[in-house]
């Protein structure tokens, strides 16, 4: 009973770490560009495909595959921002939202056209095997370890980045007041591009880790995790980096526990039910900023 609980908890944290990495992309873009980039989930899928072909068809080592996926996704993210979102900087947010959904469908259908609809079996970038704990009663696979570790490292690096670097500070300044930031000599367009670049590079990592854990790769692979990660970002408080981590991990744990103890079919419903309850009690999410009216 307890062992089962621990096993589920570990699986939950592993899945949650992936959600958290994806949610970071949502939350950073929202925090700075004040838009919901619904194409983010599909960038994950593209990243996974790039890694799949790099390691599978070209026989490159997994590390190179991951790096290549990050490079391609970074470029893709910046190009999407430049072509689809930048012209709409002054447009109402609904127009941007619809465009993001359009970009999402575009990416899915482009993948369908390029790589076909048949599911690919993704070969894990992490060697198979596991670490035994508690005298062999619990085993933690290498993929799980790498996923959690990657999530922790990314969190620490991002916190250091936004806290200490020039660009990080520029991002925080832009998220508060773009006009004032511009008048202080900050290139807002460049800052937004960089935000997309970082978010998309993270999406590539998330895509590879996701497919290493759940190895079915299709053009729609990214959409459900994308929506879940968006939920995680809202759950933790959209715009907040620690919130994305907390929301992601909680969501992963709730999902796995829902599958284990309630019903496999109902697990998603449980996840969203918890989200609804949290938002009813705390509308800005767990770590969300209090929105105060200006007087």
């Amino acid at each position: 009973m307890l062992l089962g609980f621990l096993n589920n908890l570990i699986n939950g944290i592993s899945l949650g770490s992936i959600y958290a990495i994806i949610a970071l992309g949502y939350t950073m873009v929202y925090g700075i560009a004040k838009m919901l980039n619904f194409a983010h989930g599909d960038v994950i899928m593209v990243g996974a495909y790039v890694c799949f072909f790099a390691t599978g068809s070209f026989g490159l080592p997994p590390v190179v595959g991951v790096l290549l996926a990050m490079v391609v996704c970074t470029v893709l993210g910046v190009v999407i921002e430049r072509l689809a979102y930048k012209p709409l900087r002054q447009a109402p947010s609904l127009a941007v939202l619809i465009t993001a959904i359009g970009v999402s469908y575009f990416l899915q259908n482009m993948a369908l056209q390029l790589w076909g609809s048949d599911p690919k079996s993704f070969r894990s970038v992490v060697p198979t095997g596991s670490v035994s704990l508690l005298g062999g009663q619990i085993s933690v696979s290498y993929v799980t370890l790498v996923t959690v570790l990657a999530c922790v490292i990314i969190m620490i690096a991002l916190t250091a980045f936004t806290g200490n670097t020039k660009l990080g500070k520029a991002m925080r300044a832009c998220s508060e007041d773009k006009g004032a930031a511009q008048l202080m000599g900050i290139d807002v367009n460049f800052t937004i591009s960089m935000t997309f670049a970082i978010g998309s590079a993270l999406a590539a990592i998330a895509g590879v880790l996701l497919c290493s854990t759940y190895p079915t790769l299709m053009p729609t692979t990214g959409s459900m995790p994308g929506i879940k990660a968006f939920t995680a970002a809202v759950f933790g408080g959209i715009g907040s980096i620690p919130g994305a981590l907390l929301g992601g991990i909680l969501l992963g744990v709730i999902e796995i526990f829902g599958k284990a103890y309630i019903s496999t079919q109902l697990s998603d419903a449980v996840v969203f039910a918890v989200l609804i309850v949290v938002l009813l009690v705390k509308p800005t999410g767990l770590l969300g900023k209090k929105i105060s009216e200006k007087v």
Partner: protein
Amino acid sequence: MSRLEKRQVTKMVPVPSHSIVPERDVDKAPILECSHLGIDFGGLTAVNDFNLTVGRTEIAGLIGPNGAGKTTVFNLLTKVYQPTRGTILIDGKDTHGMNTVQVNRAGIARTFQNIRLFDKLSVEDNVKIGLHNQIRYPMWSGVFRMPGYWKKEKLAHESAMELLHLFDMEGLANHQAGSLPYGAQRRLEIVRALATNPSLLLLDEPAAGMNPSETADLMENILKIRDTFQIAIMLIEHDMNLVMGICEGICVLNFGQVIAKGTPEEIQNNPRVIEAYLGSQKKEG
């Protein structure tokens, strides 16, 4: 108050562009030259035929009744709005086609009528944001805290503290900007603008909401900024004690038009200015 009392009246001399600049600046190229500047919003002409020359170390005032277009002029100068007509030369360079960031790098910094600090950042970080365009290091050296980063960060920290020290704010460096009292927030906005190393500082109603003793401090500070950094300052203000006390050249706007330019004494006695502020006297006939 010592400096204010000792202050002598600046001798202003005319320049070819129908403006006046302080006599000490007349040999140097002016920092700002606006000619025939104008902007329309749809059918409404907010500013029209705005001509002004500001000397290198001048403290210039821009006054006028509410809605005269004063802040619009600032927004034109900083390219928040692109002018419909006319040219703006900063330090002799035409700013046509420049955006806000480029204008800032060319030497214009400003504060806002409503305080627009980065509330959630610390006081020091607010100033460092202003220092941004003067420090350079590669991104990864910041993430991994390489030696190059520390060196540049130390420099930025030192310049930030130096600036804060000038305004007796170094003790507040680690406070969140949004948590400062009102007067300190106003001062921090000026420090942040100064950090971008401007040659022309635009202050939009710096004394708004201040009591007379805070205003007197502010006047001291404005003079101190000009003397320390040898830059020009242009300010919009409704507090006539401040404007008449420290401004050397004053430009009066009404309904988007310049109705008078001159020294404080000339402006105070100008019938068109009095009319704009107090309404016209009985019409003759």
